[in-house]
C-alpha cells in the first residue's frame, strides 16, 4: 500500500510537468493547426540551457528557469518567423515536415556540440516525508512551478489583451484580422509561448532526471499521448491528460514490468484517436 502511494505521488508530480510540455503542443495546435514536431528538441534545449546556466555559469536553477523561459519564447518566435509562417496555410504534410526539419537541425547541432552522452544537473534539495510517503523536494517544486505556470497561462489567455487576441485568432483568424488583431504577431507569440512551455518542462525535468540531447523525443511522444488524451487544441485538457499519464506511469509498475508502460500508453493513444478523436475533454471546435 505504501509502495502504491509512493509511486502514485511520484507519478502525479511528474504528471504536472508532462502537462505543461503538452500544453505547449496543444496551444500551438489549437491556435494554428500545426503539430509541432520540433517540440522534443526544444524540451532538450530547455534541459541543456539549464545545465549550462547552472553548471557553467553557476546560477541558481530556479533563477535559471526564468532565463530558460525567455530563451524559449524568443526561440519559438524566431522559428515562427523563419519557418512556420510560410507553411501555416499549407497542407498538414508541409507543416509536419517543416517542423520536423527544424527538429533535425536542432538535434544535428546539439549532437555535434554535446554528443549523445548523458548529462545531469547536480542539484538536490533533499527529501521530506508526508505520512508514509517520502517526496523528493526538487520534484515537488517542479510540480509547484508547473501549477504556477498553468495559472499564469490561464490568466494571460483569459484576462490580458494579447491573450484574448490569441483566443480570437484561434477561433477565427480572418474575423480577428478584420477587427484589427495583428494576427501575424499573435501567431508568433502563441508559437513562442508553446515552445516556452516545452523549454520550461525540459528545464524542470533536468532538475531531477539525467538527460541526453535525444531525451526530448521521449517527452515529445508523451506529449502527443497527453494532447490526444485531453483533446487536441485544448490546453486545460492537456494538463489533466498529463496528470492521467503521470498516474498511469505510477500505477502500472506496481503490478506489471515497467517496460510495459509504453505499450499501454501507445495502445491507449491509438485507441483514443479511433474511438474518441476529440479526447476526453473535447478538442478545439
Amino acid at each position, binding site marked *: 500500500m505504501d509502495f502504491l502511494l509512493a509511486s502514485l505521488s511520484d507519478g502525479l508530480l511528474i504528471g504536472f510537468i508532462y502537462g505543461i510540455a503538452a500544453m505547449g503542443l496543444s496551444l500551438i495546435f489549437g491556435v494554428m493547426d500545426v503539430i509541432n514536431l520540433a517540440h522534443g528538441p526544444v524540451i532538450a534545449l530547455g534541459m541543456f540551457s539549464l545545465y549550462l546556466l547552472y553548471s557553467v555559469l553557476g546560477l541558481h536553477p530556479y533563477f535559471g528557469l526564468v532565463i530558460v523561459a525567455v530563451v524559449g519564447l524568443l526561440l519559438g518566435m524566431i522559428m515562427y518567423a523563419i519557418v512556420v509562417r510560410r507553411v501555416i496555410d499549407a497542407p498538414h504534410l508541409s507543416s*509536419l515536415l517543416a517542423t520536423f*526539419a527544424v527538429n*533535425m537541425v536542432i538535434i544535428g547541432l546539439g*549532437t555535434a556540440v554535446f554528443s549523445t552522452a548523458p548529462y545531469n544537473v547536480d542539484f538536490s534539495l533533499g527529501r521530506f516525508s508526508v505520512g508514509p510517503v517520502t517526496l523528493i523536494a526538487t520534484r515537488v517544486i517542479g510540480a509547484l512551478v508547473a501549477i504556477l505556470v498553468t495559472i499564469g497561462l490561464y490568466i494571460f489567455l483569459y484576462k490580458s489583451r494579447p491573450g484574448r487576441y490569441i483566443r480570437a485568432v484561434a477561433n477565427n483568424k480572418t474575423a480577428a484580422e478584420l477587427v484589427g488583431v495583428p494576427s501575424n504577431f499573435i501567431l508568433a507569440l502563441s508559437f513562442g509561448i508553446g515552445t516556452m512551455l516545452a523549454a520550461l518542462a525540459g528545464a524542470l525535468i533536468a532538475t531531477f532526471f539525467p538527460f541526453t540531447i535525444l531525451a526530448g523525443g521521449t517527452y515529445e511522444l508523451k506529449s502527443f*499521448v497527453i494532447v490526444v488524451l485531453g483533446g487536441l487544441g485544448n490546453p486545460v485538457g492537456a494538463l489533466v491528460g498529463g496528470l492521467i499519464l503521470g498516474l498511469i506511469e505510477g500505477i502500472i509498475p506496481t503490478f506489471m514490468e515497467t517496460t510495459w508502460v*509504453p505499450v499501454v500508453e*501507445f495502445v491507449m493513444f491509438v485507441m483514443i484517436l479511433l474511438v474518441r478523436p476529440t479526447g476526453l475533454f473535447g478538442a478545439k471546435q
Partner: protein
Amino acid sequence: MKNWQKYLGLIISLLAVTLLAVWPLITSKPVDREVAFTILKGIALASSLNIILGYTGYVSFGHIVYFGLGGYIGFYLISQQGWSIYPSMLAGGLIAGLFAFLLGKAILRLRGAYFALATIGVNMAVLSFISNFDLLGGPIGMTLNFNIYKEYGGAAQALQLIFYLMVAITLITIIVSYLVRTSKFGLGLLAIREDEDAAEVMGVVAPNLKTWAYVLSAIFPGVIGVLFFFKNGSIEPHPAFPLHTSIELIVMVMLGGQGTVFGPILGAAAYQRMRGLLLTTPIFKNIQLSVAGVLLLIIVLFIPAGVVGWIRNRFPITRRVLQ
C-alpha cells in the same frame, strides 16, 4: 502515338533502376554493391510509401512499422523455424499486408494530422510491444547462426543473392506503383487526395480504395524488412522500427516529387547519395542531420511539388516522359 511510347514513363523508371543494379556488377567492388543496395532499398521503400502518401494523400509518419514487422516475422521463421529466405519473404510481406488491412480499416477513418499521429502511435506501440515479447527475443532481439548462409553457398554468395533479390523487389515495386498510378484504382486514389468528400459523391468507394492502397504500400516494406535483416544477421527492436527512417522516406518522396512514379526513385537515390557523402565528409560528418534538415526545409518551403513535379509543371512536354 506509338504503342511503346505510352509506356515511356515506366521504361525510364525501370531503366534507371536497372542501371543502378548493373553498376556494381561492372565495377565488381563489394563497396559499390553495398551503396547500390542502400539506394535500392530507399527506392523500393519510398515508392511503396508513395502509394499511400503521394497518390492517396494520407501522411503515414510511421510507415517503417511494416518494415520492422515483416522483418521480425521473417527473421523468426528463418532463425527459429528454419525456413528458407523465399517463403519467409513472402510471409513477411503477407503478414505486413494483413496487419495493414486490419489496422487500415480502423485508422484510415482519421484524416490529416490525426492520421499522421495515429501512425506514429502504431509504430511506437508495436515497437514497445515487441521489446516485451519474449518469443521474438524481447529487448535484445534475435541473431542468426552464421551457418545459415551455407544453404546459399556461403556468406559471399548469400550477399550476392540478397542483392539480386533486392533488385527484383525494387523493379516489382516500381511496376506496381506504375500500374496503380495508371489504373482506374489509381484515379480513384488521386480523387481521394484532391477531395475525399467530392470523390465519394462521384462514386469512389473511398474506404475500400484507401484500405487497398494502404495494404499495397505495406506489403513491400514487409518483404524488404525480411531481406534486410537476413542480410544484417541480427534484429533488435529499436533498429527495426526507427521512427526517424519513416521520416527520411517521406523526405525522399517529397524531394523527388510525391504522386509521381519517377519521383521516389530520384528522391531516394539523391537523398541516399547525399547522406553518404555528408557522412564521409569530415566537416559535415557531425552535422549531417542539420544539413539534411536545412535541405528538407528548402524543399518544403520552396518546391513542395518535388523535383519531378517541378519539372512537369515547368516544362509540360516532359509530362509524357516523366510519370
